[in-house]
């Protein structure tokens, strides 16, 4: 029983890491109906910029602030150069644009900071911690705490502020939003900037876990089943979806692995997502029927 709990909680905590990436997708999808394939590249770009600054002797907090500024600038540039000219195009066009963007950002990161693997030390030891008789990873606990703080911050921003109301308005009906004087480009710019911030947080945590390297941009692939289960339009969905994926893949690995062979962890989330697509295509928290790409 204790072992089961350890696996379960370990899985849930790992799931939070997936949620972090998924939230970035949800933000942009909600506001502009774009599935932003470049989110993974943004995670990589943020982590790489941060770690490269650290390695050049920039203090931790300054590096964080500078990276954040770079991510916001990147977001504004994307809105201006890519999204605005493509306003009103079909979702598939926008998706292809973000696909191209993903490779441009990755290439830019490589050109700027080089292609070698960097270690990232956030100053949190990854030794297991004993809590109430259970062995839990300190790092995972820290990541979960960070994610919780981030979600709190986002919900304050989106539920209480004028910009949050604008965002919900744009997501609901762009035409009506225009009529009450909301500037769509500005809302998009804010959302991409916030997604850049979320990408930075995810990049630091994932970078510390896996090392900062190009495979970091592949975390998008892990976010996909999370989004399908949670729904593309809900931040709570992204959290719950991440928890479900994290817990179920670990449990499957531990309990089903010995029976049908190891490596279950890698494909089990997709099977789960497929089942969800068949049973509940809009996801647990998704609104209406949405187009999938």
């Amino acid at each position: 029983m204790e072992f089961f709990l350890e696996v379960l909680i370990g899985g849930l905590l790992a799931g939070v890491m997936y949620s972090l990436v998924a939230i970035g997708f949800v933000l942009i999808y909600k506001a502009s109906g774009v599935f932003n394939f470049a989110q993974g590249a943004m995670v990589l770009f943020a982590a790489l910029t941060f770690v490269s600054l650290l390695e050049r002797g920039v203090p931790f907090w300054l590096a964080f602030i500078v990276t954040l500024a770079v991510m916001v600038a990147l977001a504004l540039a994307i809105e201006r150069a890519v999204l605005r000219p493509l306003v009103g195009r079909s979702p598939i066009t926008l998706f292809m644009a973000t696909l191209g963007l993903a490779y441009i950002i990755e290439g830019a990161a490589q050109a700027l900071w080089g292609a070698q693997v960097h270690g990232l030390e956030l100053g949190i030891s990854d030794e297991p911690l004993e809590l109430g008789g259970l062995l839990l990873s300190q790092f995972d606990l820290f990541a979960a705490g960070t994610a919780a703080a981030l979600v709190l911050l986002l919900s304050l921003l989106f539920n209480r502020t004028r910009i949050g109301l604008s965002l919900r308005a744009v997501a609901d009906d762009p035409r009506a939003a225009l009529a009450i004087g909301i500037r769509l480009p500005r809302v998009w710019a804010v959302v991409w900037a916030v997604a850049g911030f979320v990408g930075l947080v995810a990049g630091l945590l994932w970078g510390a876990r896996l090392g900062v390297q190009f495979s970091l941009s592949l975390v998008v692939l892990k976010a996909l089943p999370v989004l399908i289960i949670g729904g593309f339009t809900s931040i709570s969905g992204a959290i719950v979806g991440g928890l479900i994926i994290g817990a179920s893949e670990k449990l499957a690995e531990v309990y089903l692995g010995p029976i049908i062979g190891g490596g279950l962890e890698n494909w089990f989330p997709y099977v789960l997502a497929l089942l969800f697509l068949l049973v509940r295509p809009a996801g647990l928290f998704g609104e209406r029927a949405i187009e999938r790409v």
Partner: protein
Amino acid sequence: MSNPPLLELEGINLSFKGVKAISDIGFRVAEGEICALIGPNGAGKSSLLNIINGVYQAQQGRIRFAGQERRAMQPHAAALGGIARTFQNIALFKGMSVLDNVLTGRNLKRRSSWLEQALRIGRAPAEDDRQRAAAERVIEFLRIQPWRDEIVGTLPYGLQKRVELARALAAEPRLLLLDEPMAGMNAQEKREMSRFIVEINREFGTTVVLIEHDIGVVMGISHHVVVLDYGRKIGDGTPEQVRHDPEVIAAYLGTRPAAA
């Protein structure tokens, strides 16, 4: 109605990919009047409203609103300048409550920073209360209190029309653009809506430009009627003048004067 014009259109031309939607239309709307745009389907009425609040930009022409002349309006500038509108096929935030929809109409009235709003500090709490009170006044005025916490998407059509009017009114507009506010309503709902429009105009002095097909309603509530046909202006005057205009009668009854 000898007030100075609040809105003045001059030489407006609009075409879509070579198809002329509006040709050389100009008219004035006096401050404080109810002005009706009438005409058959496809006459260019909605396009004209879209030009006034900046959704479309005319290829030629000038718009003078509140003393400021522009080549073309921008939606944000229009909203900021006090132009609010409703749409022919309701554009509400269907996933939000009635109250929240009305509150969005006051979006541009907020002055506190997003930091104050997020943390409910500084100017934000008092401002929140003021916005809410203003929204409640509008809700009361249009008598939609019983539904204030309902999700808009679940309400019947006639009520949604009224909520959309409430959202527009919440912005305290100088100019209210109503695109077929009574379309699809029954006789009683039409009467109610007409009464609201007249009350808004009297009580707040709001200038109204509306599009309506029901000639009885139009003649009953407007001070000024502009008649369009095939993107041209064919009549402009008081309801009485327009009613007796032979060209208007011909366009409406479909009986062109027989060629001599």
